[in-house]
């Protein structure tokens, strides 16, 4: 699915990622944990192509294409989806209008016909229901006045609608109560299949009880310093990150 090699990235000339390697096969779920400031969110932003995140070295090849050479929207159309930690509000632009433009762009890229508005609406209604949001959310401005939990569910709803190949969840669990967390986890689990991969960035082991990863990686000081199975998350919860700081693993 994606092969990240020796990735170096800086923000305002300050190196954040310092040689990150990660290989993800189709169908796998990789969790990335690590202390604050380790570069967890930077990874998602660099892969999605956010401005201001400068790649200084390395590569990220997704399905045979070098991601880092593509524009942000091209990466999205190739099937990369970033669920934002803090989804921004876009007043005046309705969720529905926004989703239609997005789905149209992705379908066009895939050589598919655009969905007509009847079918699109039907699909959108379905997905809104699946994430336990009221139908009225489709008419409201993108994230406008949504609570934190509603914003996260809105992200999940978009993910379901766009059916991406690689989903990056950037601290999607932060700030969610247990009920909302379950809704998000159920949505993600329902989307898991042999062709779709996930990078789950989180600060808390709790999420991994609901979305069970195939691999857990520890990101510290811009590199992956330890990898393991899901049991590594429990170990981290118990011991903290201190024992890894020196990069002994």
């Amino acid at each position: 699915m994606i092969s990240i090699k020796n990735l170096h990235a800086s923000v305002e000339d300050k190196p954040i990622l310092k040689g990150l390697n990660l290989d993800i096969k189709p169908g796998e779920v990789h969790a990335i944990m690590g202390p604050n400031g380790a570069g967890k969110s930077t990874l998602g932003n660099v892969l999605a192509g956010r401005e201001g995140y400068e790649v200084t070295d390395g590569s990220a090849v997704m399905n045979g294409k070098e991601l880092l050479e593509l524009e942000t929207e091209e990466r999205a159309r190739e099937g990369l989806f970033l669920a934002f930690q803090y989804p921004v509000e876009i007043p005046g632009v309705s969720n529905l209008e926004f989703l239609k433009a997005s789905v149209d762009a992705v379908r066009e890229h895939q050589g598919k016909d655009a969905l007509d508005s009847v079918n699109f609406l039907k699909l959108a209604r379905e997905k809104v229901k699946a994430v336990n949001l009221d139908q009225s959310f489709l008419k409201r401005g993108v994230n406008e006045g949504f609570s934190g939990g509603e914003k996260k569910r809105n992200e999940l709803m978009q993910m379901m609608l766009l059916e991406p190949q690689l989903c990056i969840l950037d601290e999607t669990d932060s700030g969610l109560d247990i009920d909302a967390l379950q809704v998000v986890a159920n949505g993600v689990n329902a989307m898991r299949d042999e062709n779709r991969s996930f990078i789950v960035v989180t600060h808390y082991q709790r999420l991994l009880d609901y979305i069970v990863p195939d691999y857990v990686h520890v990101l510290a000081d811009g590199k992956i310093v330890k990898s393991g199975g899901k049991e590594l998350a429990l170990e981290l919860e118990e011991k903290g990150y201190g024992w890894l700081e020196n990069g002994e693993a």
Partner: protein
Amino acid sequence: MNDVVNPAAADMPNQEIHQRIRKEYAAGFISEIESETLPPGLNEDVIRFISAKKGEPEWLTEWRLKAYNAWLQMEEPEWAHVEYEKPDFQALSYYSAPKSMADGPKSLDEVDPKLLETYEKLGIPLHEQMALAGVAVDAVFDSVSVATTFRDKLEEAGVIFMPISEAVHKHPELVKKYLGSVVPQRDNFYSALNSAVFSDGSFVYIPKGVRCPMELSTYFRINEAKTGQFERTLIVADEGSHVSYLEGCTAPMRDENQLHAAVVELVAMDDAEIKYSTVQNWYPGDEEGKGGIYNFVTKRAVAHTNAKVSWTQVETGSAVTWKYPSCILKGDNSVGEFYSVALTNNFQQADTGTKMIHLGKNTRSTIISKGISAGKSQNAYRGLVKMNSGAEGARNFTQCDSLLIGDKCGAHTFPYIESKHPSAVIEHEATTSTVSDDQLFLCRQRGIDTEKAVSMIVNGFCKEVFKELPMEFAVEAGKLLEISLEGSVG
């Protein structure tokens, strides 16, 4: 909202927004049409010439001369926040007409095909069979009206829709009664000038109780170089009648500035309703701020008892715009509305807004103004809400929003609020926002390219105004914004 890892990320200038793509002004072509153009200069003889050319009655010639003499005594206004080279009024020509119009075409078949072609290019077919269904068009080319469509159908309903120069002859009693009744000759510098030299424009009269069977539209085109366009529109909606009117404007791309100083007067008698929409796309000048139209327009309406006047405008063109479509809410329970989108890019300057003068009891007004500034442009809302001592129970609501795209432009709000009645209620709100990097990133991460994203955000910003436009023009207005912004968005 920002990513935790790098709180400074939002500080970064958005290069994408500042990247420029050069797009041509689509209506910028020049028509090769032989014209009869008066040499530059303005004096009493010029005014007599214009009046004689149109075979005007004596009273109108005198009316013009009175306005001219008033104008001579007036000083050109100075506005804070608007900078431009003052026009040299003696270097302008005050009359220009396509030569083929000299004898006056009797019907569309006699109109110079080149002229018709010009309007086809602009997307306004004047042949009735091709015309937009349900829209009657009066086309004004430089100083004269070239064609008015659907006249027969309108006459059946008793609606008068014709060039004002023709109305002077055919309906002198109406013209004489209402001309200058809303905007007096000496109202301001440009209205005085217009009153002296106005060439043509549209005249509309809707009889009592009649609902005009179709949209009426005037299309203004400046073609000739070094001319000023001074059209005059007069719309009278008699008791209980209803009319929706739309004007559109374009001009060729020329290096020098051209002056457009129109006067529009609306009279809404008791229980009448006038909806006046404008899509203004005069040539805005080039990227360096060279050329473009000076658009100095006086528009005003009087609303009598229970009448309603609604101004909707989408202003994307002109180098300098100065206009304040206003409502004098004279009759009790009368209603005034102003919905405006003003977009400025490159070096454009707009100073626009409205005046709502509440005289009658229980009068209501609503002002929704959306200003979009991009490039190095300056965009100002200037408005007046005035509750006079008789305005018992009057209400106003004003919402002024500004959207800034880039850090070289300016957005300004100057609302004057004057109240003399304790039961009058005025609410004014203003906000400012930008198209943020975070918003663009979210859209792009979902596969929507920057241009489409900006267009969606800008259209969302203008939604409240667009919904006031007649359907087909709302679509046109949205597209116009997109094209006008193409200089500012990467």
